[in-house]
């Protein structure tokens, strides 16, 4: 099989109850419930190869989590075709569920009052993991995540970061071939975030697992995802290499100049938008088609020591993606 995930024209509509403000709103919605139809996914299509690690990004409410929930079989779609590893997810065949995992930063499966190792033992039974395989996987996971000392501590006494690591162990014990990660670094401190990222890359490589990852954390995407799918308002507006994202969406280029003399900034402003002044360095953003002429004007009209033309940083583009400021081309 050359594709582990196939999604075609996937549509999901929700009916959402609308409630007015305050007590009067509550009462009136009791008497006359207002329902609104939300088109969470408007017929998206994409496919993913085995072993690929794909970043799934977009503003809040774009449909990222909804897609992951459908792919993992929690939600039924309104229409469309989905095939993951040869299965239809929402039939929830046990064989399918044993091959996947959905990990959400805000969800927990650990038994709150018991030590994490109890949940692990239960998952071992639920997923029918052979004893030897279980031993191998768990000792490996524990080592990578460095949680050996915490196994016997009741989950409620763990810190958020520690708990996230345990959630990760619990979710990966059965060695899933496809992993859906929703905001895996949310709420973690910087060091833990970095460890989590290393772990994801490691897991992807070691087990040749197919991974889809959603995140609002720029570093998650820049550091680990080669391919990104950008989704906005239930539609895919970009699907390709992270490096092509800039070419695709950046309307501007960045010109950095080093000036050898004080200049009239008003004159500079006529060339492009001044992003930063840190004399003698000035950063100007200009529309892409006008880049060459802008550079020419700069060199002619000002005393310039040095001049470089750069792409808009990928972080800026991703930031725009999160704001929902990008439109389909």
């Amino acid at each position, binding site marked *: 099989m050359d594709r582990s995930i196939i999604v075609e024209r996937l549509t999901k509509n*929700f009916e959402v109850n609308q409630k007015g403000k305050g007590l009067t709103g509550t009462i009136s919605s009791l008497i006359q419930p207002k329902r609104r139809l939300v088109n969470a996914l408007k017929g998206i299509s994409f496919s993913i190869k085995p072993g690929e690690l794909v970043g799934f990004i977009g503003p809040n409410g774009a449909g990222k989590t909804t897609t992951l*929930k459908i792919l*993992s*079989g*929690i*939600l*039924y779609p309104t229409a469309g075709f989905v095939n993951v590893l040869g299965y239809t997810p929402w039939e*929830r065949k*046990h*064989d399918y*569920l*044993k091959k*996947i*995992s*959905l990990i*959400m930063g*805000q*969800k*927990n*499966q650990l*038994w709150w*009052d*018991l030590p994490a190792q*109890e949940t692990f*033992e*239960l*998952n*071992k*039974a*639920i*997923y*029918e993991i052979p004893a030897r395989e279980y031993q191998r996987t768990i000792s490996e996971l524990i080592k990578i995540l460095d949680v050996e000392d915490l196994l016997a501590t*009741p989950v409620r006494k763990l810190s958020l970061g520690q708990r996230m690591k345990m959630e990760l162990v619990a979710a990966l014990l059965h060695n899933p071939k496809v992993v859906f990660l929703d905001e895996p670094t949310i709420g973690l401190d910087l060091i833990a975030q970095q460890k989590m990222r290393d772990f994801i890359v490691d897991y992807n490589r070691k087990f040749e697992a197919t991974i889809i990852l959603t995140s609002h954390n720029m570093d998650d995407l820049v550091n680990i995802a080669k391919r990104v799918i950008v989704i906005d308002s239930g539609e895919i507006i970009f699907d390709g290499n992270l490096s092509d994202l800039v070419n695709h969406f950046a309307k501007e280029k960045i010109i950095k100049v080093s000036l050898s003399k004080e200049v009239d900034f008003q004159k500079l402003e006529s060339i492009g938008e001044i992003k930063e002044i840190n004399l003698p360095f000035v950063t100007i953003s200009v529309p892409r088609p006008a880049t060459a002429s802008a550079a020419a004007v700069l060199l002619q009209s000002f005393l310039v020591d040095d001049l470089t033309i750069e792409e808009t940083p990928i972080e800026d583009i991703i930031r725009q993606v999160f704001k929902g400021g990008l439109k389909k081309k």
Partner: protein
Amino acid sequence: MKKYLTLFKLSFQQELAYPINFVMWRIRNVIQIFLIFFLWDTVFSDPNKIAFGYDKAKILTYVFGLVVVRPIVLSAKSFEIAGEISRGELSNYLLKPLSYFKFWFTRDIASKVLNILFAFFEITVLYLILRPPFFFQIQPIYLLAFVMSLVFAIVLYSLLIFLFSMFTFWNLEQAWGFAFLLLLFTDFLGGGIIPLDVLSAPIQKVINVLPFPYLLFMPLQIYLGKLSFAQTGVSLVTSGVWILILFIVVNLVWKKGIKTYKAEGK
């Protein structure tokens, strides 16, 4: 099967994670028993008084019988289902190669075993303190029928909780309301407060068609030897039929509910 056995053991640990909580719950039960016991003891303060065909000895036997049957039939954890659906925690289970209802039925059984262990101890103590008139059934056929009726009642009760909890799929905000309704039905139509045979015959006929009297009332009647062989048979068959009906309905409602499930929040 092994997965549910592991779950069974884990449920035990979970129940005992808050030992004080559990002890308080048991104390509540004991106080409740005292309350009901003294209520009827006062109502029938004249030992010769007979009301609705019950004299003091009989009513106290019924009440004390309830003390035994209640923890067996009514100890259940699956009331958490409604909350899990409305909070979106159901997603956790849908992701696993596991049957949601078998999961909760296992937890119900674990809860019953633990409660029965404690109830057995309490009942012995209470029996020695209160010295109620207690009827010991010795006929094996009735004892067998009694055990069967209890097994049926246990399954019936879990199915009823599943059904009533699933209204949450369509009314996320009213998660608890329907479960509360079930508790009311269990007590008033199931014989948890008064023996149902104090009611007029036509009302009893209607109630006997419902599943509720087969939870507490009928098993007790069987134990007390108040039903003929034929009546015992009818009682067992009726609750069996209800189990069949509810099993089918629960599965149908689940299939529909899971399609409207929104996995909110989680």
